[in-house]
């Protein structure tokens, strides 16, 4: 069928690219400590991109019986489309990236239901007042890309996700704890999740007085994701760089972070959610250093942006949904580990905060790297010890100032979702405001 789309498109256009995705996701949802809903979510669809008289046309459909309509829409749109700078990839070599575990297909919904219930029961045996929600989910997804220059690839990916959330309400005080595990392989042992929530509950039960002023802050991996992931990926986007809206425009080769800080995008990481043999435009995947020992070394490019900017695609063409044309974006972000343990960071601080989760971190001027967020879960450090949870506290800063002024980088990395692996970051100073009790 994809050939049929390509053939039809090439009758009316000079170049064409057909993208197909189908997926079956089977989640088990737990609410109020018990299994509540089982689902099967199937989806499939085709996106067509054409170049007609030098202009790009894009259309997509989930109705596979309406191929003529799909082609007609792409043609209609191309009359007004952007001038093409696309150099579609031809037949080429791809790296072998393990992303499919056939075991995932064999896991039954009963197995998933049991896994989720065991997690909830284990956590509640230690914390009977925690109200739990959980999701255990598996996905099998198949992607194919075909274009008029001979690219013809397809791959199947498996994916498994377990998330666990606990809420403890005492009077009007609410404590929210959460963690999640992602893998391309079956997760059978998720005790790590229970340990993580147990630790958060232990540290968070006691409410400590707020910590205000310019204070040292340890960001846990989830905290790192909340404070800087959005800002950094939008600043490293080659299109923003090309257009001059990135604060990193013109700063390739410059020091933008502490020399211990390295960041790369690696879609060849085995069994990570964002991994595959190629990006969503058929360009082979590769490990791409972005910040090396504090120095900005690469930006992310898709085909169109690379053509405009006189660069090559970095294999970063990403479709966030079937109906969205590719844009440059990271796939699997990895922050290099440092040398310091989290315990040593805590011991080093006289008065400060550990930020585990933030509320509303993406609502500031992320282009400039500013962030300002309520601390959804964070702990007070006093004289090298964690003394309890801070409440009603807003932490603010600028990621570029923060990255240049790191006190230490954690030695152990953790995954946050399936697309970011990072250690703890120990920031010398962030601004903390709190409501007086």
């Amino acid at each position: 069928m994809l050939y049929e789309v390509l053939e039809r498109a090439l009758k009316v256009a000079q170049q064409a690219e057909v993208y197909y995705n189908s997926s079956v996701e089977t989640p088990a949802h737990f609410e109020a400590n018990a299994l509540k809903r089982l689902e099967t979510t199937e989806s499939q669809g085709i996106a067509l991109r054409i170049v007609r008289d030098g202009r790009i046309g894009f259309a997509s459909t989930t109705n596979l019986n309406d191929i003529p309509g799909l082609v007609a829409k792409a043609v209609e749109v191309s009359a007004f489309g952007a001038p093409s700078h696309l150099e579609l990839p031809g037949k080429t070599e791809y790296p072998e990236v393990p992303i499919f575990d056939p075991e995932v297909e064999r896991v039954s919904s009963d197995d998933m239901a049991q896994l989720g219930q065991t997690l909830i029961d284990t956590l509640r045996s230690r914390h009977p007042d925690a109200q739990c929600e959980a999701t255990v989910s598996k996905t099998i997804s198949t992607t194919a890309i075909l274009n008029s220059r001979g690219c013809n690839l397809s791959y199947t990916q498996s994916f498994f996700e377990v998330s666990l959330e606990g809420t403890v309400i005492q009077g009007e005080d609410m404590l929210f704890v959460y963690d999640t595990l992602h893998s391309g392989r079956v997760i059978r042992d998720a005790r790590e999740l229970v340990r993580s929530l147990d630790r958060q509950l232990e540290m968070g039960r006691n409410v400590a007085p707020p910590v205000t002023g310019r204070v040292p802050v340890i960001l846990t991996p989830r905290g790192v994701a909340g404070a800087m992931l959005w800002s950094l990926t939008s600043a490293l986007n080659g299109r923003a760089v090309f257009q001059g809206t990135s604060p990193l425009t013109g700063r390739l080769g410059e020091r933008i972070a502490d020399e211990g800080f390295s960041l790369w995008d690696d879609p060849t990481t085995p069994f990570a959610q964002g991994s595959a043999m190629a990006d969503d435009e058929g360009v082979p995947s590769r490990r791409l250093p972005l910040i090396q020992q504090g120095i900005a070394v690469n930006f992310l490019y898709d085909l169109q942006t690379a053509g405009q900017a006189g660069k090559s695609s970095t294999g970063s063409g990403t479709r966030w949904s079937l109906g969205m044309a590719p844009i440059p974006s990271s796939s699997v972000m990895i922050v290099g580990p440092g040398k310091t343990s989290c315990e040593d960071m805590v011991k080093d601080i006289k008065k400060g905060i550990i930020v585990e989760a933030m509320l509303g971190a993406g609502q500031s001027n992320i282009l400039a790297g500013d962030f300002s967020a309520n601390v959804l879960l964070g702990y007070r450090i006093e004289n090298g010890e964690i003394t309890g949870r801070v409440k009603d506290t807003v932490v603010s800063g600028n990621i570029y100032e923060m990255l240049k002024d790191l006190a230490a980088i954690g030695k152990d990395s953790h995954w946050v979702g399936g697309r970011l692996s990072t250690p703890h970051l120990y920031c010398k100073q962030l601004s903390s405001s709190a409501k007086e009790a």
Partner: protein
Amino acid sequence: MRDQITEALKGHSAQYIEIRVEESETTNLRYRGRDLEELGRSSGLGGNVRALAGGGWGFASFNDLSQLRERVAAAVSHARRVGGEHISLAPVEPQVAMVPAYAPRDPRLVPLAHKKGILDQYVETMLGIPGVNSCWVSYSDGSRKVYFASSEGAYIEQERVDINISLSAMARDGGDVQQSTESHGALGDFSFVEGLHGMAEGVGRKAVALLSAPKVKGGEYTVILDPVLAGVFIHEAFGHLSEADHVYSDERMRELMPLGRRFGGAHLNVVDGAAIPGLRGSYAYDDEGTPATRTSLIREGVLVGRLHSRETAASMGEGPTGNARAISYSFPPIVRMTNTLIEPGSATFQDMIAGVKKGVYACNWYGGMTSMEMFTFSAGEAYMIRNGKVEELLRPVMLSGFVFSTLANLDIVGNDLDMNQGGGCGKGGQSPLPVSNGSPHVRIQGCLVGGA
């Protein structure tokens, strides 16, 4: 379609089954500077089945509609595997209705060349302002026709047309990039998109002005919110808490949210309702086929109602309010807001600002979130208030507060209600759902403002 759907519902052993089939058409345009980064059209066809059997829910969604009967059987089988305690649904008279789209100026009938021509003008307006170095424009319109049938005999065809536009301008000074954004939406009325030249110019000027604006010092301030931001505030600071799915299955939450609890002063009245016509959160029937209502949530400062699905209503012994919504066929309906607003009082802006020695006047929205205990929302535009006067522009501010006490600090409600129709709401992975929210100007004492 009706015969196909109702036929597939027959002969299954379940307490309740519903089928939803959906056809959609979307047009997207997105600019970065003068570059048209995206121009695309999408069409969708898909459906789902939701079944309640043996104390559990089963759900199946799909694009291939050819085996509807088997899909129903799969959803019923999923539900039976859950095996929970009995779940009741509040009774709703099964409705049979055809609801055409509300579309005073239907964007589907507007030629693409005209849409692009207008957006081109906004791009040029913003880029024409000295100091603006780039801009973003994103526009989308979409129609969604839903065919809904239930095992209780409901059959509803309902169509909606939603329009969304957002303008951003960027100004840069070395490594400092400042951005100003405004977002708007409309239900089925393209003419709304045609008159935004003034807004485009304002967005551009503000981005440039922000470069030289100071950051506010973090701390507690008396804050005056404009109607747009006050709408976002009531959505985040109270609206989500009134969604009964956050409350019904948790004893402690129920204790915190009894009807009759006082949340604010006698001047505070909050309502939500899809039955308020012509707004982005308006519809005739929700995604369980319950007729839309207008629900009083806070009356004279006291909690008097909440938003329900049929399940949460039955569980709490309250009436269904028609607030079960699904963003698309890929998701089951969950309890959502529609059009949420603080009803106007009698105060003028002058009354509000007159006594404020030092405060922040915060306008326009950038975003907002809630955890049920804490909420945050950020202003697109903020000014210092000194001695009863609006003074210098500030860098964007983030406001934060405690859900259960902040409404009590809302001490004055203005007389100038306006609705914010931009953006959308996210919950449970379903985002952005078209909603609107609104308010007159309001004043809040002791609001925590994040800053440098």
